[in-house]
């Protein structure tokens, strides 16, 4: 029953898509309002150049681009989606888009996903864009998470990239014995601690368990959750993290690594650019996948995906759809994700990866060494409220690990309310 419904819906949307694609390829006109949250200089230039190319293809279209500060955008989106909607807006995948999907503020773009050009090439991110069996936007970039480390410091103390938990800890002990902290981190804005929880939980219990937790099916006071925290505590008790990390933002934690006070950083690939700018060469800086903790648990990764959506209240949805097609096309994906632009991974399987050792390693890791699955990130997979409380708890745990029982009891209370 359900599959036939789905099939007929697919057929219908495909037919619709074909007709709009036909119309769209001829002449687009009117206004196209695009809202971007890519306010940092490099991404901003990339996006503006990309929109410029789209404009050249469609001279009849009057494109109006608004770039909003990345942090401010996160609160403004609620207002502009309801009051004065643009035709295209950036956002994030998975649970992060759920409130807007459920409020009916994002346009269902399953029709685009039924087109072969997208269906065949974007399969890997389809899950992240799907809620209730429909797709609500398209991705334009994603990036790997993992451990970026100072290869020169590891070499100096005869360490190699760890592949399991024991090696990870013994490496850390060696570093500590030599007065170097194992990991730098800045938890002032909390989410960095969410990255550590993601990886420790994914490695201790696997992707499925992590997602069951995200769906609210596991109590925070569950013994398996405690096991994850017990593993985490080993690193904390060793003194593996830099001191006073609750005072620093993630950027303010970078100098510890640049100065050699800390040897590694669990981060997204966006950390590479500032580390290079701070003077670290590619000989000094390297990357490894977060090592396995529990034997037999399939490795899974975090790879947050940034996305484009069409607001339900948009005026020029035809042009907006054409823009989405353009953004995910192989050529554009190759161009905007290369090292000179975003420096991240293209979402289109036919696009090519730039010649950059971190992108190559990240791509290899995500495409062939992440059998467990690909998660988005803690605050994108877990509902907003749960994520906010939990990340605050993680920060407290990292400073006062003895408060764990209290923290978990609190989070359990929140869980019972959030998922009711």
């Amino acid at each position, binding site marked *: 029953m359900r599959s036939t419904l789905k099939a007929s819906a697919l057929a219908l949307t495909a037919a619709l898509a074909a007709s709009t694609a036909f119309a769209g390829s001829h002449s687009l006109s009117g206004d196209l309002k695009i809202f971007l949250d890519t306010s940092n200089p490099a991404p901003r230039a990339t996006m503006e150049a990309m929109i410029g190319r789209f404009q050249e293809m469609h001279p009849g279209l009057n494109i109006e681009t608004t770039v909003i500060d990345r942090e401010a955008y996160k609160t403004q989106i*609620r207002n502009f989606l*309801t009051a004065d909607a643009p035709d295209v807006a950036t956002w994030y995948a998975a649970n992060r888009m759920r*409130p807007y999907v459920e*409020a009916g503020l994002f346009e269902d773009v399953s029709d685009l996903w039924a087109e072969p050009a997208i269906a065949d090439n974007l399969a890997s991110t389809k899950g992240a864009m799907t809620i209730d069996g429909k797709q609500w936007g398209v991705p334009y970039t994603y990036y790997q998470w993992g451990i970026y480390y100072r290869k020169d410091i590891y070499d100096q103390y005869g360490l190699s990239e760890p592949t399991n938990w024991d090696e990870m800890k013994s490496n850390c002990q060696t570093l500590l014995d030599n007065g170097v902290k194992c990991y730098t981190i800045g938890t002032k804005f909390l989410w960095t601690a969410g990255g550590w929880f993601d990886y420790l939980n994914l490695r201790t219990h696997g992707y499925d368990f992590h997602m069951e937790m995200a769906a609210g099916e596991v109590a925070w006071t569950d013994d398996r959750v405690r096991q994850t925290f017990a593993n985490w505590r080993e690193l904390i008790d060793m003194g593996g993290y830099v001191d*006073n990390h*609750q005072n620093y933002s993630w950027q303010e934690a970078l100098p510890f690594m640049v100065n050699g006070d800390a040897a590694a950083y669990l981060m997204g690939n966006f950390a590479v650019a500032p580390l290079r700018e701070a003077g670290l060469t590619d000989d000094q800086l390297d990357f490894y996948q977060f090592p396995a903790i529990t034997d037999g648990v399939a490795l899974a990764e975090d790879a947050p995906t940034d996305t484009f959506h069409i607001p339900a209240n948009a005026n020029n949805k035809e042009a907006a759809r054409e823009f989405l097609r353009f953004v995910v096309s192989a050529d554009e994906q190759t161009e905007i994700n290369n090292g000179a632009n975003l420096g991240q991974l293209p979402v289109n399987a036919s696009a090519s990866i730039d010649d950059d050792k971190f992108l190559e390693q990240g791509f290899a890791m995500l495409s062939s060494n992440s059998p467990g699955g690909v998660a988005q990130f803690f605050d994108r997979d877990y509902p907003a*409220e749960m994520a*906010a409380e939990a990340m605050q708890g993680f920060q407290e745990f990292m400073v006062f690990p003895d408060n764990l029982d209290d923290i978990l009891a609190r989070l359990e209370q929140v869980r019972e*309310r959030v998922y009711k």
Partner: protein
Amino acid sequence: MTTATLPDTDPPKRGWYKRNEIAVTPWLFLAPAILFFAVYVIIPIFQSFSISLYDWDGLGQAEYIGLGNYSELMNDRAFEVSLWNNLKWLVCYLLAIPAGLFIALFLNQTVTGIRIYKSLFFFPFVLSQVVVGLVFAWFYLPNEGLLSNMLAMIGLGPVNVLGDPKLATYGIILAGLWPQTAYCMILYLTGLNAVDPEQVEAARLDGAKGWKMLWYVIIPQLKPATFIAFVVTIIGALRSFDLISIMTNGGPFGQTRVLSFYMFEKALSEYGFRMGYGAAIAVVLFLIMLVFIAYFLLSMYREEKGH
């Protein structure tokens, strides 16, 4: 026939406005202010009350839950922490008043270049709160900060003021006191200009000096300045938002939040989707403010009556 006589007997016609001019005109002048005050202050207060009875994410359908948000507040430890922090702010922030008074007394003399000194002391008030917050955050930095270095010089260990849940709020309040003291100082400086020299002269002839002079002669004359200083300091304490946002972002683990910040986090921040809960916090904050508002209005009313 009869119709012809009527116009002559009638008194000259006056318009409705002309007849009611005295009563209506003040209201006409007040109307714009009343309109804006109602639209932007009075009506939102009632809206907040009504939203606080709903479970609403700001986007979808609102669900009526009665006093559910308030009963949840009762058991919310983060709320309790915020409430206590508000109290700390209220009490500690009042230190700005005596501090401002003493600086004002100190500066109230005629020395060459006194205007420069006065402006220097007033300077922090001109700075944006964001700048004050940043400067103090750097001052407090655990290793690189000036404070840690100064403590190291006298042989004390480094202290992480903003990272320590017990100290952080006081650290932020201290940062807030810097500009607030300057504000109170300028209020007292103008107040001191209005002190009656004859009374001071008379007190001096009666043998009053030092503390007695200050307490019984000067301070009573500064009462209007003290009242204004009290009002702006209380408002400043309850408005403390920007410093917290800049210096700790409510952390470590939410220990420096105050009610206004907590409301923002719950309702409007990146992860905040609980409009009803945020509104409930706002209502509690409003009730606290109401105590002071009532007091201020009452004092002003008495003042008016006295004249």
